[in-house]
């Protein structure tokens, strides 16, 4: 009786764990949308940006964003992608660098509010002469072309389903779950960390009609990865392919069956 109860309880827990989770497509953060509009230029904003920069960034990146940084492994902001790079890094919480160990790869909570981020973006953008934030809209994008481009340029590192993967050393290509269209556009422009500049696209040039369209297409596909209908088979089990699937087959599949065999065989 007790064993039956445990078995049923286990199945119930199982069912709960394996229930497919809802997607997050609907949640477009106001921050992201707001950041898409070119940050309004105002002297007050720029001054605030300079102040923040001196507080939070200068200790590594140097007193002048367009000048050299203090450490050889820290890139100067002159050639990391300008305003888009600042927006991307700060908005996704990667900068300021949290633990000083290894590459700043994992997303986190942004340390600054919306206005402050805009201030930093305006200040650094002006200082390095690259003040444009990408203009991206997945609704303008062609989903099918996006899938094709993604398969050519992005899938090798990020996986066709956006699950992410390990690279060499401490580097990883992040999972694209929860990634906003603006993140996609900015990352393609700046090539953060180990990611190639231009994202591996043929003929990428920021600002041209063709590149903007291609980025829209890719953003549309990345957005589609967040939505539930494409996990219609059930719980994605991490989306990492046969390794977790094999784990589930052994632990849950064979596990339950061995318990069942012991029960069936009776007092043995």
């Amino acid at each position, binding site marked *: 009786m007790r064993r039956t109860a445990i078995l049923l309880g286990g199945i119930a827990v199982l069912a709960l764990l394996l229930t497919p989770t809802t997607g997050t497509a609907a949640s477009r953060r106001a921050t992201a949308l707001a950041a898409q509009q070119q940050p309004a230029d105002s002297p007050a904003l720029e001054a605030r940006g300079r102040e923040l920069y001196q507080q939070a960034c200068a200790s590594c990146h140097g007193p002048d964003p367009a000048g050299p940084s203090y450490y050889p492994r820290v890139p100067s902001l002159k050639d990391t992608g300008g305003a888009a790079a600042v927006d991307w890094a700060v908005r996704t919480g990667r900068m300021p660098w949290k633990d000083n160990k290894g590459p700043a790869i994992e997303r986190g909570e942004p340390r600054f509010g919306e206005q402050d981020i805009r201030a930093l973006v305006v200040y650094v953008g002006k200082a390095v002469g690259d003040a444009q934030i990408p203009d991206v809209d997945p609704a303008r994008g062609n989903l099918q072309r996006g899938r094709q481009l993604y398969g050519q340029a992005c899938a*090798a590192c990020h996986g066709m389903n956006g699950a992410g*993967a390990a690279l060499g050393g401490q580097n990883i290509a992040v999972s694209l779950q929860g990634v906003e269209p603006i993140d996609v556009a900015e990352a393609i422009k700046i090539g953060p960390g180990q990611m*190639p500049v231009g994202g591996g696209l*043929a003929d990428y040039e920021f600002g041209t009609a063709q590149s903007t369209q291609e980025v829209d297409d890719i953003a549309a596909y990345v957005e589609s990865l967040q939505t539930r209908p494409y996990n219609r*088979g059930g719980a994605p089990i991490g989306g990492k392919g046969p390794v977790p699937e094999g784990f589930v087959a052994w632990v849950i599949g064979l596990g339950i069956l061995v318990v069942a065999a012991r029960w069936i065989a009776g007092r043995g």
Partner: protein
Amino acid sequence: MTDSDQGSERVDVDRRSEQGPAGAPGGPGDRGGRPDQAMTGGQRRAERRAAVALAVAILAGIGLFIVYFAGGQTQIEGVLFAIAFGGLGIALGVWANHLLDAREVVEERHELTSGAAGRQAFEMALTEEVGPVLGRRSVLVGLLAGAGGALGLALLLPVLSLGPAPGNSLKVTPWRRGLRVVDEEGQPVSLDQVPQDGFLTVFPEGHEGTADAQALLIHVRPGSLRLPPERMAGVPEGTHVAYSKICTHAGCPVSLYEQETSRILCPCHQSQFDVSDGAKPFFGPAARPLPQLPLGVDEQRVLIAEGDFTEPVGPAFWDRGRQ
């Protein structure tokens, strides 16, 4: 598999079924179970459990009909099937363990061997009527064996029709001197197209998408390549280098380019190649570097190939080093 094979048999009766007539095991007219026998409390409880399990199974079965004709839904159907089958399984398991009158029985094992006599009889049966030719080394038997062998081999000939001879095909690709470099959609790639720290998958013009021709074009930082001069001749402006995209280990497309460390990683077995050092593998199971594709530039600053890859692309095979 008749009774006589089984030898003697002992039947064990345990305490639980002592209330009925003792013994009288499995004779020809015996139909076993005693349907009018009173059930113990435990058996009544077991019967209830089985009944509940079966009832749940029936409900799940009905549910399946409803779900299917309503349009179907994979998760619900899976759960309902599991409940239906599981309910039946539980019921039968409970039945087996509590509601049967099964006794533990001892069955004697019989000898597996036919014994020397049996084997001799077999040999007799084999050799009794074979006549003067078989069983003796004679010309006829020899010829029979020869014919059988020749025919057997000939029957294998259609196997050779399964595929072409490998020939030279593993050692050459469609790349030729003068062919333009194009992307996978056939658009020619110009020298100024790929941004610094960017990369692109390229093919020879006219052969877009051909598997063995796939190459990675990488725009590296000036001065970062450490190749000998004859190899640098195939790198326009010292920054645009192309390597085969086919991993020399087991053939996967080596696509993961790390721009800051100038390394290419293969996702299949984690071989890593150093772009600055002629794509030599420095970690992982790959033993040979990615072959380089020498590039040049035509009058319109479109990249062209200066020849085929410097060695056979992809994984090693037996005669890779032979002409």
